[in-house]
Structures are given as structure tokens and as C-alpha cells.
């Protein structure tokens, strides 16, 4: 038995650092894409036109209630097969990263949309009316009046969901990816595979995750409570 800190020795430390960077990349890219998707879907859900509204509602209903692991398994195994059969070209393995990002964005996007809708409904109706009498277009009303307020009203929920999205990047564990593209959990599994011990790599990434989620949680919540205080006091 050896009391090692081999996780902090090469090459494992390098793998871990790489994994941390991939985790950050995946969570920031998918989080941003999800935020934009969520806004767009929210806008469609609240229009009076039936078609887009139905499509957006369906999107939210589907992706809010699908678990990520089987969804990722389905998408990263069935879609490349379909792509091959339809186009006759191979779907390269590194492009699974895009599928992963798409699934994470769709999942978080649907949840963002649900949260944002509650926010939009929380914006006083007169806010839109007064903006309209000022001659602002529907788009300008959305971007400058409704969405900024909606986001602030539900800021704590958005912050929580953003962190959830970061944590969801571990779902990449079920996606086959080249070693260079593995995120933290994948690298931990790789280290465990070579050292026959899960304890150290898992403990190491658990600490990193705690620091990431508690740290970003602290900043996001501070931002959220300030933002929320402003719109709530102002709406009175």
C-alpha cells in the first residue's frame, strides 16, 4: 500500500488540468448557447401565432422531461449511424463534442425558457404598454424592456440553472471522445483505468467541482439578489 499523491504527478496532473479546461469550455459554450436558445424559445412561446408557439412549447415539453444520459447515448450512437446512412459520409468521433454541446444546450435551453417565461409573466403588463406608446417596436420592447426585467426577476433561478448546466458537463462521461477532448470526469476515469484506483482522481475532481460550483454560486447569487432587488423595488 502506498500513500501517494500520484494524481498530482505527471502525467496525471496534466490530464486533470486538461479536463478542467474542457469542463469550463463545455459549460461556458453550452450555457451561452442555452441562454440564447432559451430567450428565443421564450419569445416564440409568448407570441400570438399558433404554429411557432406550439413548436416552442413542444420543444420545452420534450427536453425538460428527458434524462441526459439516455439522450446522449441515443444521440451519439444513433445519429452518427443515421448520418452515415443518409449522407454516406462518416461522422468523425471528435464531432461528438458538438452533439454533446447541442444536447446540453437543448436541455438547459428548455429549462432556461421555462424559467424565463415565469419571469416575463412577472413583468408588469404596463411596462410593455408604456414602451409601446413610446413607439418602440416589438423587438425593441422585448430586448430592452421585457427580457432584461424578466431575467432579473428570475435571476436566482437562472443562476442555479447555470451552475446545474456546468455540473451537467460530467454527462460527457457517456460520450465516446478522443482522449484530448475528455472533461474532468472522463480524465478521472482514464486515470482510474491506469492506476486501478478511483479514490484519488475522484476526490480531486470532487474538490474542483465544489470550488467551481460553490465559488461561481456565490458570485452568481450575489449578482442575482442585487438584480432582483432592483426590479422588485422598482415595480412597486
Amino acid at each position, binding site marked *: 500500500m502506498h500513500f501517494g499523491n500520484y494524481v498530482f504527478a505527471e502525467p496525471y496532473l496534466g490530464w486533470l488540468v486538461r479536463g478542467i479546461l474542457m469542463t469550463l469550455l463545455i459549460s461556458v459554450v453550452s450555457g451561452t448557447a442555452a441562454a440564447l436558445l432559451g430567450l428565443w424559445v421564450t419569445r416564440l412561446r409568448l407570441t400570438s401565432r399558433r404554429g411557432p408557439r406550439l413548436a416552442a412549447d413542444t420543444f420545452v415539453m420534450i427536453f425538460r422531461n428527458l434524462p441526459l444520459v439516455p439522450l446522449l447515448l441515443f444521440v451519439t450512437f444513433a445519429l452518427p449511424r443515421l448520418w452515415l446512412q443518409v449522407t454516406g459520409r462518416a461522422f468523425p468521433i471528435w464531432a461528438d463534442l458538438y452533439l454533446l454541446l447541442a444536447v446540453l444546450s437543448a436541455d438547459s435551453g428548455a429549462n432556461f425558457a421555462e424559467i424565463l417565461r415565469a419571469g416575463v409573466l412577472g413583468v408588469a403588463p*404596463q411596462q410593455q404598454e408604456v*414602451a409601446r406608446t413610446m413607439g418602440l417596436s416589438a423587438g*425593441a420592447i422585448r430586448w430592452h*424592456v421585457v427580457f432584461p*426585467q424578466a431575467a432579473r426577476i428570475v435571476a436566482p433561478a437562472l443562476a442555479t440553472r447555470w451552475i446545474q448546466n456546468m455540473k451537467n458537463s460530467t454527462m460527457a462521461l457517456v460520450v465516446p471522445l478522443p482522449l484530448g477532448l475528455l472533461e474532468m470526469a472522463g480524465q478521472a476515469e482514464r486515470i482510474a483505468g491506469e492506476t486501478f484506483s478511483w479514490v484519488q482522481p475522484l476526490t480531486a475532481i470532487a474538490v474542483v467541482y465544489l470550488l467551481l460550483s460553490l465559488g461561481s454560486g456565490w458570485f452568481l447569487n450575489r449578482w442575482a439578489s442585487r438584480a432582483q432587488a432592483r426590479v422588485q*423595488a*422598482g*415595480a412597486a
Partner: protein
Amino acid sequence: MPADLTTRPAADRHPGRAPDEPRVVLNLDQITKRFNERPVLSGVSLTLRQGEVLALCGPSGSGKTTVIRIISGLAPFDSGLCTIDGTAVNAGQPYPRRLYGSVGVIFQDACLFPHMTVLANVTLALRKFKRLPAAQARQRGIAELERMGVAPLADRYPATLSGGERQRVAIARALALDPLVLLLDEPTANLDPGLVDEVCERILALACAGTTMLLVTHAIDFARQAATAFALLREGTCQCSRDPGTLDHLRPPR
């Protein structure tokens, strides 16, 4: 309220009005509106000329706010004709685009955008609707805020303002767009008694400066001071006159 304004009868402010009166800015002709099969307005007609201040009074629930919402395009109506600055608004048809921004509305609550500074509130439409460059919009915004006496608050957020200050900012925001007519929907109804005067004072000043306004209010005394014409909305119809006595029906019996 300053003494000189309270003591002067409103009608005296336009002595010797010529028979060829100023052009009509706003004309409502037999506007009807039903809500859930219940008639709210059953034939409202009124005329507002440039420089006039029309006080629209009526008991609660008589449809005063509905009139304002119809004029500003926020609510549809069933029949009749609404003409603003020569442009007809027809029943059941979309509000003409060229009228956007030419009817300023002040709601009961100031309805400032809480996520923007006071100045940003005022300049938003200047930049996004009038397409003014940022510097010019800012200049214009500051000027309007100064006119309302709230320029020092330009960088504050609405949540930190008093009710009276908010309402003054809201007026500045509406005036920044140079509206043909300003619709005020009980601008002082939700204010603490101590804050009413500062707002009334500004509205009176606007009246003196010749701003065309439609003023919906419960405060009959204030209406008499500010207005040059009076309208009483009751049972879905409207009765207009230049006689301040029109409003007497509203006085609670003593």
C-alpha cells in the same frame, strides 16, 4: 400648490379666443367598446384642439382609462372613428405606425423601466425609435429632465426615487418624443398626499406652456385649474363643455 396658480381660474388663461380656433389634434367620434358583452363605451365623442387641456372626469369604472387606451392604441374598439392629427384610427384595424410616439401616455404608476437609470429611461425611445445618436439623445434627455426638475437624478435607478420624482421622470420621458398630445391617466392618484403638489405644479406649468393634454383625474379642483375644457364620462357617453360646472355632477352631495 403655489398661490398664484390656485387663485387664477383656468378659463382666464386663454382670454379672447378667436373664432378660427387652432387645428384639431384629437377627435373621437361615437366610439363604442364592449367588454365581455357588457358595453363600456357607448358612443364617446370629444375633440381636443392644439394647446387645449381637456379634463376627462367620471365616476370610477366609467371607462376613462379605456378612452386613453383606445387613443394610444393599446386597446381596440368596436365602432366609431378616432382621428389623431388627421390620421384615422379605424375600429378593428391596427394602429397606424406613424402615430407611434406622437401620443404620450402617463399612467397612474409611473411605469419607469426599473432596470434602467433615469436618463436611460428617457433616452431609450429617442435612440431606438427616433434613431438619434447617443450623444444627441443624451442632450435631449437631460433637457427634458431639467424641464421637469429631475436632472440631478439622471444617474439614479427608479427604485431609489420617490413617487413624485418617478412621475416627473415619466412625464419627461413622454415629452422627450415631442408628442402631439399628452394623455395623463390619473397621474397623482397613487401618490402620497405630500407628493401630489410637485407633480400638479409641473402639469400646470406644461398647461401654461401650451402643451396639448388630455387629463384624466379625480381631483376636480386640480382639473378646474389646469383644464380649458371639460368632459364628463357617464354611462358610456361623454358630455363636453368649456364650462367648469360640467364637473359639478361629480361632487358628492353634501
